[in-house]
């Protein structure tokens, strides 16, 4: 059987040897910063695993952490094989990238077509980490009740036919970024709106957790959630400042707006909660910080630090109101993916249309408050298109997976918990008899 080996050699070995020499557009400083940023964004997914893991009940801690971690592994492979090509490959009618770069065929050490100051492989991997965290964000909506196999199949299909085309529309030369001219600095639409709309769709399709809302489902380990939020904040510097795709002033601006919005939104959430419930909670502070990080994402490189404060105030207070509306509307978006990423991401995309300024970044555009109302309209069109596209295709994928494999765990398994039933493990051993469980 020599034939399979030949295919292996063709796919995996040929492209590497073609691009051994670096072209002189590649900048060492830029390349270094994007390599570091890629590693920072990678850390966000385990951070998200802890953020979510602490908020579920004790019996589901490993299953919830696993949802994020397995996607880091799975999407890393999907991205190299076909995801990157669909998102950033040669444009097909503004809708999707071609499969010419399947298996990174032709993607090597040469300058990246989208950003000639860094090697193509670096650009590919940086984008890959965004593709990893986006489906991981969705997992908060169907936490504690989804079937593991169905979740894996859903995630692969979702990245293939929802995430990759959307990334193409906004960043890969597709219609939203290139023709419409909407601004999305680091993924407010592509990452946060898309994951949140998918999350809301999934929460409704899969249904509520058994016992929700009659039974109280407290977070089981808030220190773990706070650690996760801290890792997210840390990694977000790579996410936003790395999205400058260069080291320098623009990266510095995005770094500062990111940090400022996170702090302001945490304060705004906390203050709102204090007024409403007479107490400032730790979960509130970290949730507010994440809301601020989400909201500044599309705006990070287009607005001033003072605008970032206003964006942060909006994010903290709006997201607090949104998560409180959940109980009124009656759906079980278990870990508030829509309340934080959907509302925060939408506010951020709208706010980019309000606060963007060419005085801050000549590569951007002026927003409503700088005399250009048309950018706000453009942003709203991009938001609406993303909502509709993501909702329709996510719904189709979920229904197909539900009909063929079933989305939900059995009642017994859901009652016992993901850790034991799905993974055969226990997150915590509280046995008294020398580690033996009684």
């Amino acid at each position: 059987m020599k034939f399979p080996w030949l295919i292996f050699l063709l796919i995996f070995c040929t492209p590497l040897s073609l691009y051994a020499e670096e072209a002189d557009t590649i900048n060492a400083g830029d390349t270094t910063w994007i390599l570091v940023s890629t590693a920072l964004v990678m850390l966000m997914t385990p951070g998200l695993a802890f953020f979510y893991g602490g908020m579920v009940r004790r019996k589901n801690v490993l299953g919830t952490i696993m949802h994020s971690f397995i996607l880091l592994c799975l999407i890393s492979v999907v991205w190299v094989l076909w995801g990157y090509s669909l998102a950033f490959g040669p444009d097909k009618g503004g809708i999707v990238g071609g499969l010419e770069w399947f298996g990174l065929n032709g993607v090597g050490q040469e300058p990246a077509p989208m950003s000639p100051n860094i090697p193509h492989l670096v650009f590919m991997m940086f984008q890959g980490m965004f593709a990893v965290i986006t489906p991981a964000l969705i997992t908060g909506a169907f936490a504690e009740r989804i079937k593991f196999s169905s979740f894996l199949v859903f995630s692969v299909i979702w990245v293939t036919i929802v995430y990759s085309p959307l990334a193409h529309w906004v960043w890969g030369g597709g219609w939203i970024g290139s023709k419409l001219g909407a601004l999305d600095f680091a993924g407010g639409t592509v990452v946060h709106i898309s994951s949140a709309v998918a999350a809301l769709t999934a929460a409704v399709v899969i249904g509520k957790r058994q016992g929700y809302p009659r039974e109280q489902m407290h977070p089981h380990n808030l220190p773990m959630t706070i650690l996760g939020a801290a890792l997210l904040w840390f990694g977000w510097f790579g996410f936003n400042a790395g999205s400058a795709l260069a080291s320098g002033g623009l990266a510095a601006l995005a770094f500062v707006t990111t940090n400022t919005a996170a702090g302001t939104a945490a304060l705004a959430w906390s203050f709102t909660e204090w007024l409403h419930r007479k107490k400032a909670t730790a979960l509130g502070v970290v949730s507010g910080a994440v809301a601020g990080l989400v909201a500044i994402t599309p705006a990070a490189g287009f607005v001033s630090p003072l605008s970032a404060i206003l964006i942060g105030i909006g994010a903290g207070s709006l997201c607090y109101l949104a998560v409180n509306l959940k109980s009124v509307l009656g759906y079980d978006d278990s870990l508030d993916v829509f309340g934080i990423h959907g509302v925060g991401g939408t506010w951020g995309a709208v706010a980019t249309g309000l606060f963007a300024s060419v005085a801050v970044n000549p590569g951007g555009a002026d927003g409503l408050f700088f005399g250009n109302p048309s950018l706000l309209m453009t942003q709203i069109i991009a938001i609406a298109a993303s909502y509709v596209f993501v909702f329709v295709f996510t719904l189709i994928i979920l229904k197909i997976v539900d009909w063929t494999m079933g989305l939900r765990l059995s009642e017994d398994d859901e009652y016992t918990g993901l850790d034991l039933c799905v993974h055969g493990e226990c997150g915590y051993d509280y046995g008294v008899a020398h580690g033996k469980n009684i």
Partner: protein
Amino acid sequence: MKKLEAIIKPFKLDEVKDALNELGIQGMTVVEVKGFGRQKGHTELYRGAEYVVDFIPKIKIEIVVSDDILEKVLKAIEQTAKTGKIGDGKIFVYNAEEAVRIRTGERGEVAL
């Protein structure tokens, strides 16, 4: 022999244990329990949502004593576990039929 189940505030455990030691009680079993009486529970806040927690943590002490020191033991627990505020707990007393020391096979009060 009488069996006592005393449900007390968790932070009172050490004081009660020391008082019982002074009376010559040589062993006890302690369980972390949850429940409510007239004190009721408390509320917790998660992302603005209020969760009412009905069952609050208490300590249950189980001891078996001889009839002649029962009153002293009851008094000792009552005095040391008391804060005067709602939620101090309760003591229940039952008849105990038999006691066996597993190591030696001794029966009755000598096994306590």
